């Protein structure tokens, strides 16, 4: 199985490829885009500048570096809503990507897919998790539009993933692993991402504070899925007891706190993914600090090597993964799993 890591700059790409990544993925927000969309609106689902490369020159450097190490570079253009006005800017990126030698585009907007096909652009197309490939017929739909690789949505159960992969032996599939455990379905979430209503804690510093495990009670979360809402029950078919109402409200409140976890994992599933024929594990989190990404790649590399070298049972593998987690990150696994069934 391959390890696909997110990058924001050339220095990171070098470190992650050195650590064992087989491919890196990145976004670019060139000046032509920022001029029209200075904030919040992104061609690749990451509005924060720190989560993107600043220029095509940097992209070229990363492509040259990756290719010198027999690794790959994928450019994300996976906005879930591309309007007609944005097409010239999107296709400026596509042309540049082709020119610099990017290995594939990660897209999900059907209009963009159709245009790439109509223009005969000769680049591999990876269908982003934003394509909502929850069933085999959707995968077939995208295959017919030119996708050669599918990045599966995170909210699939293991048996559902297995069935889809089995139905398409000729297509490569990636699964997300590690970080960013958002509770909503990415491609159906029409909240804005990247709003920051507190200038004391711009994106990167906020994440660094979490990563360094300092108390973050002073931090401001701005993503809608993580706000500290006041929650009330406003209607019910029959009036619940006060105790039941209390339980309901606590459960809902917890869901807005619990799902925003830096150490969401899923690596205990790696052996099963390998057995199913999953092509690659994609590390989430373009905006995360470099040190975290390096550890993520090292962690996955150790696990993938272990899968190759040894035969083992599920519990034994899970113990190995959790022990390795502790070695790499210096703390116990929080058991906050991307794919939690049966563990």
């Amino acid at each position: 199985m391959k390890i696909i890591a997110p990058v924001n700059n050339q220095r990171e790409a070098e470190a992650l490829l050195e650590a064992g990544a087989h491919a890196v993925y990145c976004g670019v927000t060139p000046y032509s885009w920022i001029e029209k969309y200075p904030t919040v609106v992104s061609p690749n689902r990451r509005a924060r500048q720190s989560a993107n490369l600043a220029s095509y020159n940097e992209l070229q450097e990363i492509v040259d570096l990756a290719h010198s190490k027999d690794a790959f570079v994928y450019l994300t253009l996976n906005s879930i809503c591309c309007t007609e006005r944005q097409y010239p800017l999107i296709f400026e990126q596509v042309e540049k990507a082709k020119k610099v030698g990017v290995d594939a585009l990660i897209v999900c907007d059907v209009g963009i897919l159709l245009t790439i096909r109509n223009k005969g652009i000769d680049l591999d197309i990876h269908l982003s998790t934003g394509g909502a490939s929850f069933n085999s017929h959707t995968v077939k739909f995208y295959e017919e539009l030119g996708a050669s690789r599918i990045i599966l949505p995170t909210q699939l159960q293991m048996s559902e993933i297995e069935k889809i992969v089995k139905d398409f032996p000729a297509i490569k599939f990636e699964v997300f692993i590690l970080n960013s455990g958002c509770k909503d379905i990415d491609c159906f979430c029409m909240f804005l991402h990247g709003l920051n209503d507190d200038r004391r804690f711009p994106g990167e510093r906020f994440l660094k504070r979490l990563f360094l495990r300092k108390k973050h009670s002073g931090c401001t979360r701005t993503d809608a899925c993580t706000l500290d809402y006041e929650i009330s029950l406003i209607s019910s078919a029959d009036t619940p007891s006060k105790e039941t109402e209390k339980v309901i409200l606590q459960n809902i409140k917890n869901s807005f706190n619990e799902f925003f976890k830096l150490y969401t994992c899923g690596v205990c599933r790696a052996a099963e993914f390998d057995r199913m024929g999953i092509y690659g594990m994609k590390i989430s989190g373009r905006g995360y600090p470099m040190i975290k990404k390096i550890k993520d790649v090292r962690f996955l590399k150790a696990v993938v090597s272990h899968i190759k070298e040894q035969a083992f049972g599920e519990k034994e593998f899970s113990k190995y993964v959790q022990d390795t987690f502790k070695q790499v990150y210096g703390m116990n696994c929080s058991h906050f799993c991307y794919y939690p069934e049966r563990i």
Partner: protein
Amino acid sequence: MEQAIFIANIENTKYVKLQHSRLYFGNEFCEYLIPSLEELRYIIDFIKKNKIAFTFVTPFVTNKGIEVLRPIFEYIIRKYPDTELVVNDWGVFRILRDEFYHSNLVLGRLLTKQIKDPRILSLKNKVSWSMKQYFKETNADTPVFSDFLSVNGIKRIEMDNVLQEINRGGEVLKASLYFPFIYVTTTRLCVTAACETVKNFSRNIPVCGKECRKYTLRLHHYSMPKKLFIKGNTQFYKNDYVLENLKQLHVDRLVYEPEIPM
């Protein structure tokens, strides 16, 4: 202007009034809420008796959900072939096009992308002209996408009555406008399922007891100009104010939701 009404369970036929010439029935967000054949029979009898048109609404689905929908499609297309079918899943679209040869299809709200964050109102005077236009537009209006939809049997798109208004022009498909409940986000990690018992939190898809049919919750945060509602696995906000220039926007149908359609 066609007046349609959208209900998610059969008890809500009580809301159908004389001005409604079309009934929407079904669910967009959850395969556990796909109606049974019995419920469908009831609805088809109802629309025939009341001589109104019928639109069946389908959700995004897993492979299991596809198998639940197949006999329903067989039944509907046999019993009432004029039925309009709303698709919120490209796999479902593909089955209807290629297996059932049904060409009276509509692109649902999940596939007609519009930014819907209520906080757009707070950004109103702080963003560029391009951003303001972006917030008012949908990807389904791009010529290449519109043409694809049209050629493949989809003649209409479903839109939400968003706070920031809508901008459409040129050669676009006809649209329906849903109001007053605007969907914003959805999940399979349903927070309402099994909500009556204390949960030990993990990212799992809970066992569903259709608690969503019992409970509606409201969320309030100072940064959100509109209160949000959770019903089942989906969040909505409410916008009662319907735009006046609907004809210029190629909107020829209003879809009224008397209750959150879950």
